[in-house]
């Protein structure tokens, strides 16, 4: 096939075993274990300071681990410096060498590998074509848009046929429209080349859209690792539930593995949940509205205070007296409940996560 030379070697299994990293007293990464299947794209997702970038830099060899191993396809590379590891890396922004053209940037890694100039030009040309920038080979970074610069950076990373591709928030410096287009582009190229890829981001939408598996991280450890649908629909911990997607926090009372939220009983995910007051975490799409707000007696009756139009779906904010609840539904349904109308909330009886109510501040 004509496209054969552009493909890297088939994906390689990558293992992170018990990786740890401390900065003085601060533990940035604590015993991280992650095995990536050949050709798999894993996204590490989390707030800033959660250790995701540290994990990526340890894999790249840009920092040294305090403990644990990094294994590329059976070879332990933990002791190797970055320039001996064969990793392709795309940075947040501004990583193109400003004194080189796009072509020279892409060819630079090949030059370091002592390829002939013909070979460099051919390979760099192919890579630029792969990212759709054939016509921009002679442009300097300052003459390219932010999105184009990141494509060149991707081509440059892939040109050296690396063992693994590392993407360090490559989209965060771009504006929203370019971001989603380039996101899909990165996924297409990654699948085309078949390279094992670690993608670090703080944007949950990005992670869910692009990854085979998503790892949600918090304070140096993995909270949950799984396919995007699982992470979204069955969050393993309250942190994951709150970080991935929107979540309503509704007070209730737990008894025998069932939480009672103002009269509606929902099964609790956590098996060992003790009885007593707790916060139930309910997704907006698990909340629907009916117009019979007049029927007295239900504690789930409230007033619509705002409707935000999101396109095909709309988000309705309901004041339930004391708490506000978000409900997400098709726009056609939402339009039946304009602001000011009385509505009754119906909660889908899916299992929910609960969180212990924060202890009331002790005053002495």
């Amino acid at each position, binding site marked *: 096939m004509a496209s054969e030379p552009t493909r890297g070697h088939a994906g390689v299994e990558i293992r992170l075993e018990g990786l740890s990293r401390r900065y003085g007293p601060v533990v940035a990464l604590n015993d991280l274990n992650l095995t990536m299947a050949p050709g798999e794209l894993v996204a590490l997702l989390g707030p800033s300071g959660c250790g995701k970038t540290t994990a990526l830099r340890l894999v790249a060899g840009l920092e040294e681990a305090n403990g644990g191993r990094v294994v590329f396809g059976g070879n332990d590379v933990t002791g190797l410096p970055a320039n001996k590891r064969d990793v392709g890396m795309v940075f947040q922004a501004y990583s193109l060498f400003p004194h080189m053209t796009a072509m020279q940037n892409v060819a630079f890694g090949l030059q370091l590998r002592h390829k002939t100039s013909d070979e460099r030009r051919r390979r760099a040309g192919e890579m630029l074509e792969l990212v759709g920038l054939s016509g921009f080979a002679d442009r300097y970074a*300052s003459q390219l848009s932010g999105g184009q610069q990141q494509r060149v950076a991707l081509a440059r990373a892939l040109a050296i046929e690396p063992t693994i591709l590392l993407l360090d928030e490559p989209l965060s410096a771009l504006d929203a429209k370019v971001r989603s287009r380039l996101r899909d582009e990165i996924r297409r190229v990654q699948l085309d080349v078949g390279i094992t890829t670690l993608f670090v981001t703080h944007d949950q939408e990005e992670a869910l859209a692009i990854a085979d598996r998503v790892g949600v991280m918090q304070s140096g450890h993995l909270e949950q690792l799984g396919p995007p649908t699982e992470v979204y629909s069955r969050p393993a911990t309250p942190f994951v539930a709150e970080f991935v997607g929107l979540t309503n926090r509704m007070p209730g009372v737990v008894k025998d593995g069932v939480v009672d939220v103002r009269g509606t009983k929902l099964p609790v995910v956590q098996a060992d949940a003790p009885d007593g007051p707790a916060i139930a975490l309910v997704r907006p799409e698990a909340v629907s509205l009916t117009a019979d707000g007049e029927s007295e007696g239900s504690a789930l009756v409230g007033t619509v205070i705002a409707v935000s139009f999101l396109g095909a779906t709309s988000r309705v904010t309901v004041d339930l007296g004391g708490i506000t609840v978000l409900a997400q539904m098709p726009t056609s349904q939402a339009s039946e409940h304009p602001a000011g109308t009385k509505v009754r909330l119906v909660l889908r009886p899916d299992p929910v996560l609960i969180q212990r109510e924060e202890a009331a501040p002790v005053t002495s």
Partner: protein
Amino acid sequence: MSAAGNPALNTAARPAGGGRRLSLSWIGVVPFFLYVGLFLLLPTAIIVVGSFTAPKGGLSLTNFGGIDKPYIVKAFTLSLSVSAVSAVAGALLGALLAYAVVTGNPTGLLRRSIMSASGVLAQFGGVALAFAFIATISTVGFVYIFLKDHGIDVYAKGVWFYEAPGITLVYLYFQIPLMVLVFLPALDGIRPQWREATQSLGGSTWHYWRHVAGPLLAPAFLGCTLLLFANAFSAYATVAALLTNGGVYLPLQIQALLTGETEQSQPGLAQALALTMILIVVVVMTLYTLLLRRTTRWLR
């Protein structure tokens, strides 16, 4: 520049009766132009006209004919070589110091105090500087005496302090800080991603300096060296205080020609020398500006 200027320009020209408003606008800059016209442009014009005026009046190149006198040629050579050597040495040492500063904490006390000190020392010249080195390394200087007491005579082969090497050493005292001030922004513009990208592409530290940091910093370094050259070449006070008995240094020659006793006084030749100095500095500073423009495109 033009992008920022244009909308503003439109606003200025927009109001009804634009012609009247525009002429009113000009009144605001009259004091400035009047002042610089009188004390900057007029003196410059006097130098240019004077250079091309013969002692007895009339347009001529007579004044420039005096430049090939041996003592003037010697003065030029000494001035140019001291400026060049102090510029190159100052640039190298200043770049090292600047690199030591940028590799430290960007908001730390060390960086702030070195930057403030550089700001003071880069302006520090003239009489006080000359005295500082006289007290340090001249034949009555503290360091000279200390070294001599310990068996090292830095003037074993003659006292070089009042000659080119001495002047160069003294000049380094303001050249190095100036280099730190002007070169540091370029070093700050070097992004850590470039080193990391080089590493991940398989490059060593040597590759990084050879292919990335070196080429990126070269224009800035060259430009700053030129600035240092112009700075040293323009300096007068330090060398005047150092060589109190006069010497074959270009600015001292100008002084002698300008203020000397009647038979020595040759204002025409002084003006020709001044114009030559200005032209040299203008050429150097133009090159500096061009190199700086390239640098700012790369290293913002």
